[in-house]
């Protein structure tokens, strides 16, 4: 092994038990935890005491839970299975019992542990092989097919234009966003109107105030409608006065006398 060996090879360096008891997250699932506990028995996996292993696992989970550390469901399922395994191992099976014997269950567990360990070892051997780009190298300056690559990609002008048009069109509502003023909310209209009227005590037609906005066809209607509605509201609240001398004549507005100087209405 050397410095470039990936971290995981040093998987579980002899942890001391204190660390072990809180570090459930350090394990990749219940089988990993069991394998680690099994290794602590320092015997060949085939000669391991499954009963002792089950007890250690159950103790571990119990301790962790006492410390109110949340344990993933996988671990609890395994705990339940091991508790059952333990009971099967301790009570001799009756010949009529249809359930698998404790010995069968123990063999199953041993098999799974051995298989996981074998796969780990295999992964380690694999990763320690002379690997391409590290110990073994391909041609550093490949020459093949350099010329054809330019033509490898296909797209027609139509595709290109279609893609562009679609994109731009899709973005249009966002472009509209800039002009969204074209709908005046009542609150906006009210604010604009109050600002325009200011402290003016003279009768001025609404159209004159809105002159700047009415010139813009996008805004004409909404400016007129919202301002009118707001002017009614402002009049009702006593901020301004309204006058219209003839039907369809200009709507005149002025600030109410006792409102002078309080643009924001008390």
């Amino acid at each position, binding site marked *: 092994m050397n410095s*470039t060996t*990936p*971290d*995981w090879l040093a*998987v579980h360096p002899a942890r001391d038990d204190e660390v072990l008891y809180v570090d459930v997250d350090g394990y*990749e*699932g*219940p*089988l*990993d935890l*069991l394998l680690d506990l099994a290794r602590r028995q320092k015997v060949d996996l085939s000669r391991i005491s499954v009963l002792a292993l089950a007890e250690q696992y159950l103790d571990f989970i119990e301790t962790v839970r006492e410390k109110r550390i949340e344990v993933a469901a*996988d671990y609890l399922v*395994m705990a339940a299975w091991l508790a059952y395994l333990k009971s099967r191992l301790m009570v001799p099976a009756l010949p009529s019992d249809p359930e698998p014997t404790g010995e*069968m269950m123990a*063999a*199953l567990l041993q*098999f*799974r542990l*051995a*298989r*996981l360990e*074998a*796969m*780990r*070892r*295999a*992964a380690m*051997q*694999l*990763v320690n*092989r*002379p*690997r*391409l*780009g*590290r*110990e*073994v*190298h*391909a*041609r550093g300056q*490949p*020459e*093949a*097919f350099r010329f054809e690559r330019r033509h490898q990609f296909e797209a027609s002008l139509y595709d290109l234009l279609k893609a562009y048009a679609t994109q731009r069109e899709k973005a249009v509502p966002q472009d509209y966003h800039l002009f969204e003023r074209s709908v005046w909310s009542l609150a906006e209209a009210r604010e604009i109107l109050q600002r325009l009227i200011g402290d003016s005590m003279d009768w001025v037609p609404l159209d004159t105030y809105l002159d700047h906005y009415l010139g813009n066809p996008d805004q004409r209607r909404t400016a007129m409608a919202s301002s009118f509605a707001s002017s009614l509201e402002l009049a009702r609240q006593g901020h301004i006065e309204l006058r219209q001398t003839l039907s369809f004549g200009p709507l005149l507005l002025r600030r109410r006398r006792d409102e002078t100087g309080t643009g924001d209405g008390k």
Partner: protein
Amino acid sequence: MIDEPFGDEPSQIAERNLRVIEALLFASADPLSADEIASYLSEGADVAALLGRLGERFQGHGVELVRRGDRWAFRTAEDLSFLLRREQTETRQLSRAALETLAIIAYHQPATRAEVEEVRGVASGGGTFDVLMQTGWVRMRGRRRTPGRPVTYGTTEAFLDHFGLESLGDLPGLDELKGSGLLSSRLPPAFQVPLPFDGPLRDDEDPLDPDDRGDDEAAP
């Protein structure tokens, strides 16, 4: 290429073919198949025999001809590895979970995600398989003909190339694992010990759907 006398036509043609193969394989960073090579050679050339001869010529060289699955490539000799050792800084190091998953796929292929999880005893995050697919070492092979039609995974030729294996039979410790029955995905160990298999689809595998992205719940 002057270690053999030539002058008669067939040998001249063979020499030329050898030169072409040498140039092609030297020029390409990725292994080439016999078919790909054949299209550059004279009609009816015996590619396998030519590759064999080329391999002999480069035996003991600093660069050797190697077989990777059904493909061939020149690679620097393994025994020079300590001299040529380069740290791969660009490639991210695989997580432990990913390496374990890779090994399980390699030794148990074709393997479904559930089978990998069964060996590891823990649910794999989707990310692990994605990362492995990104390395180019693992591919989706097809779908298992069982309820849910889970995707089956296997290794690629890039996998063989990266780890310097001629074929899956070169996987380290394969014989031992086979002997101990540890390659079984079924429990308890079945009598018939399966071998990793990266050939065409098996009887219990369906091809992937077009545009299959490996979501485990495929439409039946």
